[in-house]
């Protein structure tokens, strides 16, 4: 028994090492979203191109991605080509142009392509605030009933889509929409 006690420091060291090792793979900036499982907040925002004022009822009806982006956001440019790819495959993506200049935003979409079914212009960032957005890019999965199902902070790429987002769109395969 006293011999076993000699190993206590080693055991404590191994435990601590495991804890710290786990810490290496955690992302301290990823926060649990308070909105998952709750309805997307209502809003009245202008569409970027048509300036038509839209509400939540006007955009829901099928599963979609709500992508928060801005021209000042470098990572948004990084994920943009992949969003175009997803849109081409039939995924409905709503853009939320967050705290941005509308003229710049329109030019950006014209130059790089427009993956968005429509783009809401949240110049003041107030819908963003209601959704708990704290940076761009962020991407939310909103289901057909308008309930937020998932939130991804950071760039959406093939790996993120496959492992976290695609499952919410699977039921639609039956309706002839081919997804990756």
């Amino acid at each position, binding site marked *: 028994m006293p011999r076993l006690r000699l190993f206590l420091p080693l055991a404590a060291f191994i435990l601590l090492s495991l804890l710290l090792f786990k810490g290496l793979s955690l992302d*301290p900036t990823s926060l649990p979203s308070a909105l998952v499982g709750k309805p997307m907040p209502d809003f009245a925002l202008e569409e970027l191109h048509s300036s038509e004022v839209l509400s939540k009822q006007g955009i829901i009806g099928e599963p979609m991605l709500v992508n928060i982006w801005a021209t000042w956001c470098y990572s948004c440019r990084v994920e943009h080509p992949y969003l175009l790819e997803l849109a081409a495959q039939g995924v409905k993506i709503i853009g939320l142009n967050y705290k941005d200049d509308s003229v710049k935003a329109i030019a950006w979409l014209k130059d790089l392509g427009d993956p968005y079914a429509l783009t809401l212009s949240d110049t003041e960032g107030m819908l963003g605030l209601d959704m708990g957005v704290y940076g761009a890019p962020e991407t939310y999965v909103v289901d057909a009933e308008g309930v937020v199902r998932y939130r991804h902070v950071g760039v959406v790429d093939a790996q993120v889509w496959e492992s976290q987002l695609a499952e919410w769109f699977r039921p639609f395969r039956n309706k002839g929409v081919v997804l990756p």
Partner: protein
Amino acid sequence: MNFCVSMMRWLPVVSLCLTVISANAVIETYEFSEPSLEARYHRLSDELRCPKCQNQTIADSNAPIAKDLRFLLHEQLQSGASDDEILSFMVDRYGEFVRYRPAMDSNTAVLWYGPLLLTLVTLGALGLHLRGRQAIKPALEPSEEEREVLRARLAVRDSNPERQP
């Protein structure tokens, strides 16, 4: 001389240490209809965490999101919202994370009781250790048999004066 040179080398470092880092004070100012509202504003903005720049409160962060939250905080205080209403508004959007003093629930119980538990465990371990040491102590005293042997040896030495130093 050498000493002076080495001191000179450290002078920039020392002077940097003495420089007061000017607090990154928040730029905008808000007007309050009542002084009590202003006091609550300062208290609440010091308790709400900035979601973007974690480990800063919204009072000392310059991030745009912190600015928005301060704006909302001011709006809500002016419109007569209670502290609880304001905090639950923030928690609804950013989760319990946004509070530096999160509410007690199963997720935050470790935060609230962890330190207390750790203190108790440490004190308990210390108590056990000290008791263990006390239990060992009598064993360090010579036993009756050992005393006999020692007495016998002393007697031998005393009866043999030549070997005394």
